[in-house]
């Protein structure tokens, strides 16, 4: 199983500090909820883990593989659902999934099996030959979820997977995240939906203005925020981020 280890990670864009000396670990099989206000640095952190961005300093390791020194080895272990996934709209669903599987090194037979199974699980079998561009937002999100798991990764990086989805699709994605946890996947989940974090995350990391503000279970965060024992996560979150 995979784990993520982030040490003293800093990312600067032309003088703007997006991440400032962030250290954090996500243990094997853990579901860690990454929450923070807009522009806190969550997406930047995730893009560094998946290899789109490069850190200015610090290290990120996936199962011991440094994402800068051994990017291909690290990427083999990671599945990624971007915030607002951009899919190849001129490919059919089938073609798109085969493309993603191929470039991730999945064998032909396994790819065939996986595509059929996944489309059935996500109730998209009848859309297999439809162009991705013609799908609804919810269907596209489902395709993005399938694409992230085509190579059966140990680690899942989910960046706002519930954004702009209708309640039915949200419920589906809830169930899917839960199933990934049960399957022993390591999940780093960024979201503004605190309910899902409260329900499924084994640990919560609050990030604001590029720095980790707090980390721990809900109970620990309540104590840190000096909140009552039955305080909801949103109350705790607001208390912990109000001064930063």
């Amino acid at each position, binding site marked *: 199983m995979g784990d993520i280890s982030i040490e003293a990670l800093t990312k600067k864009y032309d003088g703007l500090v997006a991440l400032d000396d962030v250290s954090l670990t996500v243990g094997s099989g853990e579901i860690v909820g990454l929450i923070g206000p807009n522009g806190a640095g969550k997406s930047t952190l995730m893009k560094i883990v998946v290899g*789109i961005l490069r850190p200015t300093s610090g290290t990120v390791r996936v199962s011991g593989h440094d994402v800068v020194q051994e990017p291909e080895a690290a990427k083999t272990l990671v599945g990624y659902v971007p915030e607002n996934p951009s899919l190849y709209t001129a490919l059919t669903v089938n073609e798109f999934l085969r*493309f993603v599987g191929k470039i991730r090194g999945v064998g032909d037979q396994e790819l065939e099996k996986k595509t059929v199974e996944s489309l059935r699980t996500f109730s998209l079998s009848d859309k297999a030959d439809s162009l991705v561009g013609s799908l609804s937002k919810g269907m596209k999100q489902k395709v993005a979820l399938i694409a992230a798991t085509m190579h059966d990764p140990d680690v899942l990086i989910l960046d706002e997977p519930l954004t702009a989805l209708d309640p039915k699709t949200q419920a589906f994605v809830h169930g899917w995240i839960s199933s990934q946890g049960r399957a022993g996947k390591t999940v780093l989940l960024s979201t503004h939906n605190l309910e899902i974090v409260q329900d499924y995350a084994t640990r919560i990391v609050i990030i604001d203005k590029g720095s980790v503000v707090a980390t721990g279970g809900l109970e620990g965060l309540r104590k840190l925020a000096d909140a009552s024992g039955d305080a909801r996560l949103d109350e705790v979150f607001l208390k912990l981020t109000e001064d930063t």
Partner: protein
Amino acid sequence: MKQGLPTQPAAWRSMSVLMRYWLKGRLTRAALIWILFGESFAVVGIAFGSQTLLAFSSKFGVTQGFSEFALSLLLAFILVGLLQSGFSGSGLPVTAADVDYVFTAPVRPSEIFGAKVLINSLTTVLFSFPPMIFLYLRLALYYGTPLWSAVPAGLATLLFLVTGLVLSADVTLSLSSSIGPRVKVLRNILIVGVAAISILPVVLLIPGTPASLGPITQILPSGLTAAISIGLVNGGTWSFGLAADGALLLAWFAGSLLLGVRMSRGHFYEVLQVTDVGAQGSSEGGTGAQLQTTGRSVWSVIRDKEAVTMRRTKERRGLIVSSLFLSVFMIIYSLAGTFQSSPTSFLFILFLIGSFGSGNASGWLEKERLWIIKTSALDIRRYVREVYLARVTPLLLFLTPVTVVVGVPLFVEELGQPSAFAVLLALPSALEVAAVMMGGGVYFASRYGQSTADEILSSQAQQLTDVKRFLYQTVVNLVLVSPLMGLVLLEAQPLSFLLLSPALLAVVLLVGSVGYTYWLLRRLLNASGDWILRREDL
């Protein structure tokens, strides 16, 4: 590593998968139709351009040397343009989907570089081959050399284009922070040197400039290609000089490719410019020009908003560059003497200028953002008119000097002849045609422009709709401007029963054309506003 875990595919395998699916995603039916259209337009343009060039050559008694000079200059512009696009991060164009799915896959950066360069080269060759061959066939016919010589000449030009693409990619890769500051200074000096040498042929036009400077351009791919291609279609034999030029051109290609492969070993994704920025939600361009609202009327703010937007999206820069090209082309056309032999051929130029404006305007549509206006108390018709004014003003500002530079000397030459008034009338008509066609562009965008939220049509069907719209728009725009063109024709060949002197007729026609333009524009823009209100998808 767990049992059955996918392994990293071999380099050739990754590249072939990337290319196969990128091609599948790119070469849709609609894309192929666009390519065919583009090629047809390119062939027409080349036919017109080469005719002008050869007319110029005949008039001034220059043959091969001038063709080589002209081609060298044209290729130099292409080369400098490619290098410039390399600096803006577009040397290796990527989509948002590439970022999300290819950059996060276990594919080496150099494999992505290789696949991108290969696919860009392939599509460039596919698009450019027919127009290139047409150009060299035309030249071979003119020089009376065997037609087959057009093939190697075309291939040399295609090699130049591919080399230019690779060089552009190299420049983009060199933007990476892993390249040291000293190397970056060296790169900048090199690029400035290449740009300076590229446009050296222009300096040769200055009287008194030593002709010995000419061959200097032949150290660059543009000069080499011009020498090889023109040499071949002019019946040049396979001399040592030609072979050396060929070897040098190949060396440029191999060198730039090797350099690119070397630089693409490291992480370069952050320097690339995503082509479909909308999908990424990012924006481009500086914020130097600020939208001021204090103490200003709502309509002036709306006009200013449009102007600021055009500046930030680099649309205005595109206008300047395009009008510069148009100026050079029209000046050469004028120097070739075609206008003098047939003043009404100015009409073709009118349409060219008009198409320039129409193409620019048809891209306008604020799509979903129009809800801001539709839900306000603003008069939508007036809103469209103000937006149009903001967009047409810079266009006319750029086109006016072009028209004056070409038209006034013509008028002076024709002074005293009836055709002089036709030329005179053609000048404002050129700008009126541009304004009307731009109004037509706004109308078609308002009526048929696809909203990005519209998910009913598949992307391919949407592209096909765009093709049909483009054709429809071109035909209708032609019909709209034909009265203006007719007025110029009437002045060139006045009918005796009108009993008006050419000067008076010119004044009457000018007043008539301005009135027609005003009436037509008002109708078009009001109809555009009505369509925006009527459409439920905006």
